[in-house]
C-alpha cells in the first residue's frame, strides 16, 4: 500500500515538478495509524469532540468513531467478533466484560496499567473496578459509572407532608400513599416502567437476594429475599401508587413529571441533564435526587457503567492504549460529563467543582458508595428480559406474583443448563482461565 503510493508519487513527481514532490514528502512522512473506535448511543455522539483533540495531540493517529445504538450494541459486538471486524478500541458495558473475556476478544491491560503515568487502580471506585477484573486479570478501564437513584418532586412531596426523603421501604411507601392522597385521581406517586428490569432487580439486591446460585448455574428468584422485594414492587402497582404502563406508552416522561403525573422515578445520571433541559424553568428548584431507600435504611443500587476495552488482536496496541489513557484523564472525564451527563469513573474528577457544588450529583456520589454488580453471566441479557416479562405479567394481573417467580425460576433454570453441564466438566472455570 505504502510502496505503491510512493511509486505513484515518484512518477508524478518526475512528470509534474516540485509541487507534486512536496505533496509526496507529506504523504510519506505521516501515513497515520487508523484506529477504529466504537461507542454507543449518546456517548458515541459526544465522544467525537474529545477524539478530535486527541488527534490534534497525536498527529500520527487518526481515530474513526462509529456510533452504535445501545439497543443493538450487544448483538453488533458479537457479530463483529464472529465476523472478525471488531474495532481496535470499544466501549463495553461492564457486565459484558466476562462474556467478551471468555470469547478471548479482550486484551489484558495489566502491563499497560503498571507502566502508565496517567492511570492508577486506586483512582477508581473499588466496586466498579472489580467488574473489570476477571480472575485477577484486568480487561477494561472504567470510562463512566452508572447507578440508579430516586428523582423526585420536592414540592409535591412537601405538599403531602414529606419533608425528608425516606430511607426505608416502609417510610418510602408511606410517602407514596401520602402523595397519592394529596394529588388525587389521575396522579401517581412513582413511575416504574413495566418494560424495565433494573428497578425490580435492584429491590431484590437490596433485600439480599442473589438471584443466581451455585456458581450462577441455578436460578433462585423464589428465595424469601427476592420474593419479599417482588411483593413490595408489585404491591406498588396493585395499590395504585405506580401506573401500570411501559416506557412506550407514556408520551413524554418529562412532561408527565412536570405535570405532576408522578412524583418520583428511579433512573440514572444521564437524566440530570435531560431533566434540566426539558423541565420548565419554574420547576428548576422543585426537583431533586436522593439515594435509594432500602428495606431497613439506605439501600444498594446497581454497579453499572461502561469501560474502555482494547481488542486482543488489534494491530496498534500502543496507539489504542494511548486513546484509552487520554479518555481517562481527569480533565477529559469532567469534560465528558459536561457533554454527556455520564458520571466520571475516576475519583479525582469528582473533586471538580461541577460535582462538589452540585446537590443533584451528590446523591449519585453517595449512592456509588453502596453499589453491587448483578450476576456476571453471558445469559444475563436473556434472564433480564424474562424478569421483565414476568414483572409485566404480574403487574397486569395475568398471573400472581408467586407463580410469576416460579415460572421465572423454571425458565431461567432451563437457560442455565449449559452452565451446569460446563460446571460438571470443570469447564466453567477453564472458560475464564483460558482467556488469560
Amino acid at each position: 500500500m505504502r510502496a505503491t503510493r510512493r511509486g505513484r508519487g515518484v512518477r508524478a513527481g518526475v512528470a509534474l515538478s516540485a509541487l507534486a514532490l512536496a505533496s509526496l514528502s507529506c504523504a510519506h512522512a505521516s501515513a497515520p495509524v487508523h484506529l477504529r473506535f466504537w461507542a454507543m448511543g449518546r456517548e458515541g455522539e459526544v465522544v467525537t469532540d474529545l477524539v478530535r483533540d486527541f488527534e490534534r495531540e497525536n498527529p500520527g493517529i487518526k481515530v474513526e468513531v462509529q456510533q452504535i445504538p445501545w439497543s443493538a450494541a450487544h448483538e453488533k459486538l458479537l457479530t463483529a467478533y464472529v465476523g472478525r471486524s471488531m474495532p481496535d478500541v470499544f466501549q463495553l458495558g461492564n457486565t459484558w466484560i466476562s462474556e467478551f473475556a471468555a470469547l478471548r476478544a479482550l486484551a489484558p491491560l495489566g502491563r499497560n496499567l503498571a507502566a502508565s503515568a496517567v492511570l492508577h487502580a486506586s483512582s477508581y471506585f473499588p466496586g466498579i473496578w472489580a467488574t473489570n477484573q476477571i480472575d485477577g486479570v484486568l480487561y477494561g478501564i472504567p470510562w463512566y459509572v452508572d447507578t440508579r437513584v430516586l428523582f423526585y418532586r420536592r414540592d409535591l412531596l412537601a405538599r403531602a407532608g414529606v419533608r425528608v426523603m425516606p430511607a426505608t421501604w416502609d417510610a418510602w411507601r408511606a410517602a407514596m400513599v401520602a402523595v397519592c392522597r394529596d394529588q388525587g385521581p389521575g396522579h401517581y406517586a412513582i413511575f416504574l416502567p413495566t418494560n424495565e428490569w433494573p428497578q425490580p432487580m435492584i429491590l431484590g439486591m437490596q433485600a439480599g437476594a442473589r438471584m443466581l446460585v451455585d456458581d450462577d448455574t441455578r436460578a433462585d428468584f423464589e428465595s424469601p429475599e427476592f420474593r419479599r422485594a417482588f411483593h413490595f414492587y408489585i404491591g406498588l402497582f396493585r395499590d395504585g401508587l405506580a401506573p401500570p404502563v411501559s416506557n412506550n406508552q407514556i408520551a413524554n416522561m418529562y412532561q408527565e413529571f412536570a405535570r405532576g403525573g408522578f412524583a418520583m422515578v428511579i433512573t440514572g445520571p444521564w437524566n440530570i441533564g435531560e431533566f434540566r433541559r426539558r423541565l420548565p424553568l419554574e420547576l428548576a428548584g422543585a426537583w431533586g435526587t436522593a439515594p435509594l431507600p432500602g428495606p431497613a435504611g439506605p439501600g444498594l443500587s446497581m454497579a453499572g457503567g461502561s469501560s474502555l476495552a482494547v481488542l486482543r488482536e488489534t494491530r496498534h496496541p500502543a496507539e489504542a492504549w494511548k486513546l484509552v489513557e487520554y479518555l481517562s484523564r481527569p480533565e477529559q472525564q469532567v469534560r465528558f460529563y459536561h457533554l454527556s451527563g455520564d458520571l466520571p469513573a475516576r475519583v479525582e474528577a469528582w473533586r471538580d467543582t461541577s460535582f462538589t457544588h452540585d446537590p443533584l450529583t451528590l446523591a449519585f456520589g453517595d449512592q456509588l458508595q453502596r453499589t453491587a454488580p448483578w450476576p456476571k453471566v453471558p445469559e444475563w441479557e436473556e434472564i433480564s428480559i424474562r424478569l421483565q416479562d414476568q414483572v409485566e405479567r404480574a403487574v397486569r394481573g395475568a398471573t400472581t406474583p408467586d407463580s410469576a417467580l416460579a415460572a421465572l425460576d423454571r425458565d431461567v433454570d432451563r437457560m442455565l443448563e449449559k452452565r451446569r453441564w460446563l460446571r460438571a466438566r470443570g469447564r466453567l472455570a477453564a472458560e475464564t482461565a483460558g482467556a488469560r
Partner: protein
Amino acid sequence: MRGSGERQDGAAWVLVSPALLLIGVFFVLPVIAGFLLSLTDFDIYAIGDPRVMRVVGLGNYHQILTDGDFWIAFRNTMVYVVLGVPLSVAASLGAALLVNAQRLRAKGLFRVVFFTPVVTTLVAVAIVWRYLYHPKFGLLNWGLSHLGLPTADWLGDPHWAMPAILLLSVWKNFGYNMLIFVAGLQSVPQELYEAADLDGAGAWQRFRHITLPGLRPAMLFVTVMTVLGNFQLFAEPYVMTQGGPLRSTVSLVMLMYEQGFRWWRMGRAAAIAFVLFALMLGATLLQIRTQRERST
C-alpha cells in the same frame, strides 16, 4: 442417434452448471449446514471454545415445542396469517378494481398513491403510525372519540397490539398485490363482459362469473405469496413494539432472531427456522391443492 442425445445431454449440463453451482453454494449448502446446526447446541460458549459444542440430535426441536414462548410466537404468527391474508387480498383486489374502473380518471395517479407505501421505508412509516396510534394524541383515537366510540391504547394493550400491527402492514403492502391484480384484470378478455352485458348480467354477476375466474392464476400467486410473506412477519413488530406488550407481538421470525442474534443460541434458532419452513411448506401445499380442487 443415441450418441447425439448424449452429446445434447452433455451440452445441457454445461449450460446449467453455472446456475446449479450458484444454487448449490448459496442455497443447498447453507440449508444443509443450517440443518446440521439445528442438531447442535452451538451457543456463546461454543463460539469461545468449539469443544464445548454438543450434538443434541432433536433436542432443540423438543425444547422448542415444549417452550411456552414458542407457542406464544406460533399463535401470534397464525393470528397474523389467518386474519392478515384475507384482509390483505381483499384490500388489494378492491384497490385493483377501483384503479382499473373504466370511469376513473387519473388512473396513474391513484396507482402511484396506492403503491407509494410499498416503496416507503418501514422505519419512517412506523414512526408516523406510532403517532397515529398514540393513546392520547393519536389521530385514530381522536377520530374514534369524535364518533363517540371507545378508544384503545393500540400498541400498549396486549389485545390490540397485534391488530394494530396487522392494519399497518396491510396498508403498507396491499399496493404490490394490487399491481398484480391490475395486470390480471387487464388480461380478462373484454368480449366476455360485453357478452355478459347482452345477456343482462348485473355488476355482481359479472364480477362473480367473469372477473374472479379470470383472476384465478393471479389469485393463487397472490395468496401463496402473501401467506409466505405473513409467516415471515418481523420488521413491523421489531420496529413498533419489540415484541411487547406481554410478548403479544412476538412472531416466529422474531423469536428466531432473538434466539440467534440476541441470546446467541444458533442451534435453537436454526431449529426454529426449520419448523417455520415446515409450516410454510405445509400451508403452501394446502393452498395449491384446494385451488386445484376448486378448478376441476
